[in-house]
């Protein structure tokens, strides 16, 4: 799955963040179709050297996967001293607190260099082709992580360095996508739901209708849906009560696509900019990530009231949840330092510091909704943006699919976005 997820809009940040700027600059670079295609072409090469059958490495909640440890990729030994650095991190732009990075630099007497990427697919391609190099990935997706493992581009973690492992949310200490947490530890959590302005739409209507509110013609021209094939299709499936968000039934997928297409008549926006569009009133209600409204507080007009922002999410058994992963690259020049950084991120207090900047809930047991609100890091009215261990454990997961099935979703989504 490709996520053009925008996680850079932290509280107190200007409306045009650096990451947005990068995305838009990249968009500009891709202006000429042939040039974009050339880049894609140049970034592709034969995969004959990679182990066969990577789709067997796709874990699902009902069929967790134990990722293989290859004999030529066993990770680092225990008891090594951290390298001098600089530590090179691949990450979404503005998706880690600069204060936290500085604290790490001071503690380990090193420097941290962050290289940004826009989307998971870009990350995998660029790491694979060597266009992106570094020591670790701070935020990758489990949808694409299996490919990195299959191609031996990431190395197993040595748990002896990650003393804060126990701080991780229990639901993610033995995740289905990496049973035993051999290669990854989680970074942040989020769910799919509806962000809205409660002064423009009655919360009772949203609670009563749920996803179906997007199909209500009363909100024509005021709705939006995420610009991601799987995550937008998930809404159409859930609206019909279908909780198998990874269905490979062509008829069900086609119907979901047709349902989405009905939204075209309502002038639906297909965008990730909900964090901004809802606070400013451009959109009244839209599908979004749970972190969007926490970041949206800073996007309100100067006279805006944070209490007007709300986030609706379905009940746990129908709630799509997700989390980002931290992992160390096989080619890391500073693998020990990378382990130390992961451990640093998993420290409870550091996680709170990071939350104040990124706005997405850390995947730790200590960073509960109660604690975050108690520390005044998010308003009580946005409690729904914060997830519980139970929600993460029992929520629905959108996971990677074999290419043939993924194309079914892509065609349906493409047909929808073509209008």
């Amino acid at each position, binding site marked *: 799955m*490709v996520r*053009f997820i925008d996680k850079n809009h932290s509280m107190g940040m200007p409306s*045009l963040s650096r990451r947005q700027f990068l995305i*838009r*600059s990249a*968009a*500009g670079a*891709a*202006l*000429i*179709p*042939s040039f*974009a*295609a*050339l880049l*894609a*072409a*140049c*970034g*592709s*090469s*034969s*995969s004959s050297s990679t182990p066969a059958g*990577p789709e067997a490495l796709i874990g699902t909640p009902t069929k967790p996967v134990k990722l293989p440890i290859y004999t030529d990729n066993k990770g680092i030994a225990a008891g090594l001293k951290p390298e001098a650095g600089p530590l090179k991190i691949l990450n979404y732009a503005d998706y880690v607190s600069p204060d936290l990075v500085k604290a790490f630099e001071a503690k380990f007497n090193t420097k941290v260099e962050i290289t940004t990427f826009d989307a998971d*697919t*870009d990350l*995998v*391609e660029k790491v*694979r082709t060597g266009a992106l190099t570094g020591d670790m990935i701070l935020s990758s997706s489990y949808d694409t992580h299996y*490919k990195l493992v299959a*191609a031996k581009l990431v190395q197993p973690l040595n748990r002896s360095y990650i003393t804060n492992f126990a701080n991780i949310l229990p639901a993610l200490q033995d995740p289905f996508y990496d049973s035993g947490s051999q290669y990854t530890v989680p970074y942040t959590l989020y769910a799919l739901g509806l962000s809205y302005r409660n002064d423009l739409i009655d919360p009772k209507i949203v609670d009563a209708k749920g996803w179906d509110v997007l199909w209500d013609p009363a909100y024509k*021209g*005021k709705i*939006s849906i995420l*610009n*991601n*094939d799987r995550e937008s299709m998930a809404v159409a499936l859930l609206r019909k009560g279908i909780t198998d968000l990874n269905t490979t039934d062509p008829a069900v997928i086609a119907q979901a696509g047709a349902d989405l297409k009905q*939204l*075209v008549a309502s*002038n*639906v*926006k*297909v*965008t990730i*900019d909900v964090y901004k569009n809802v606070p*400013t*009133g*451009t*959109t009244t209600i839209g599908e979004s990530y749970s972190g969007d409204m926490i970041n949206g507080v800073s996007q309100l*007009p100067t006279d805006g009231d944070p209490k007007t922002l709300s986030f609706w999410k379905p009940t746990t058994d129908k709630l799509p949840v997700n989390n980002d992963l931290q992992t160390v690259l096989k080619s890391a020049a500073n693998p020990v330092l990378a382990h130390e950084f992961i451990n640093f991120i998993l420290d409870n207090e550091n996680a709170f510091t990071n939350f104040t900047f990124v706005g997405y809930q850390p995947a730790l047991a200590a960073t509960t909704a109660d604690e975050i609100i108690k520390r005044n890091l998010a308003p009580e009215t946005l409690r729904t943006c914060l997830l519980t261990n139970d929600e993460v454990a029992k929520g629905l997961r959108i996971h990677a699919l074999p*290419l043939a099935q*993924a*194309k079914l979703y*892509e065609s349906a*989504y*493409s*047909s929808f*976005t*073509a*209008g």
Partner: protein
Amino acid sequence: MNEITATAKGVRHKQQSTRFWALFAAPGTAWLLALFVVPFYAVLALAFGHPDPIFGSAIPEWNPLKWDATALRDALSRIFGGDLGTVVIRTFTYVGITLVICILVGYPVAYYVARSARKSRGIILTALVLPFWISYLMRMLAWVNLLAPDGMVNRFLDWIGIFGGPKNFLSGNAVTVIIGLAYGYIPFFILPLYASLERMDVRLIEAARDLGASRARAFWRITWPLSRQGLMAASVITVLPMFGDYYTNGYLSGSPNTSMIGNQIEYYLHGSTSPQTGAALVIVLSVLLVILMAYYLVSTARAASSVALR
């Protein structure tokens, strides 16, 4: 004998001179090869290539004998009679309307500048070039701020109180997208047209006026025909990049109602596991544009031959 030698020398001199001048084309040829021929072949290789079974990315097939046309066939069937037909028609419609706006707005401006006094011409030209100092994307973002529900346009409408409440200009509004396109591309239209109009011999218009033609008649019989080639060039320069545009819709609408073929290409190349489809769409779009370019080239050649005959 001497005559023969002189002729031979002349031929040799001519050949050397031709080679010398041909050298001037070398940088342009190298540029075209590196940044057009090779990339376009890469697009072909991509469109006719295979998906990587592991990464889902496209593996280009450089050998034309092994090309697989499945992606192109799929793209064609989706465009002609399939679900992508609408987006192609919409793209042509938007580009066509935008071009008309560019002509209606840009032609008088270019004409005015070309006929202005030299001193003021410099100032006006600077003003025309001024938008280039700010990137296209930033200019589009400025429109987003202007047209937002609490933006200046809506505040003004609210203030005059005629239209009743703020308008949602940024959700699936075709007019917004077309105005955005026209705003973004009009400098590209005006400048080449100005260059053409500026070269026009004013004495021809004066002669027409002296012979009793009205201002309008002099325009239609002299200025318009003589500026047609400049108009064609300006149109081509404006229209070609506009066909591949996807971010104008992305920023000013973001709705499938107003999506263009560039949006589909962008999705398939950057957000899907089927970049071949994106490359195939690029090829289909390129072929359609080649047809337009061919018309331009033929009309230019005709115009050149008619001038030669005179």
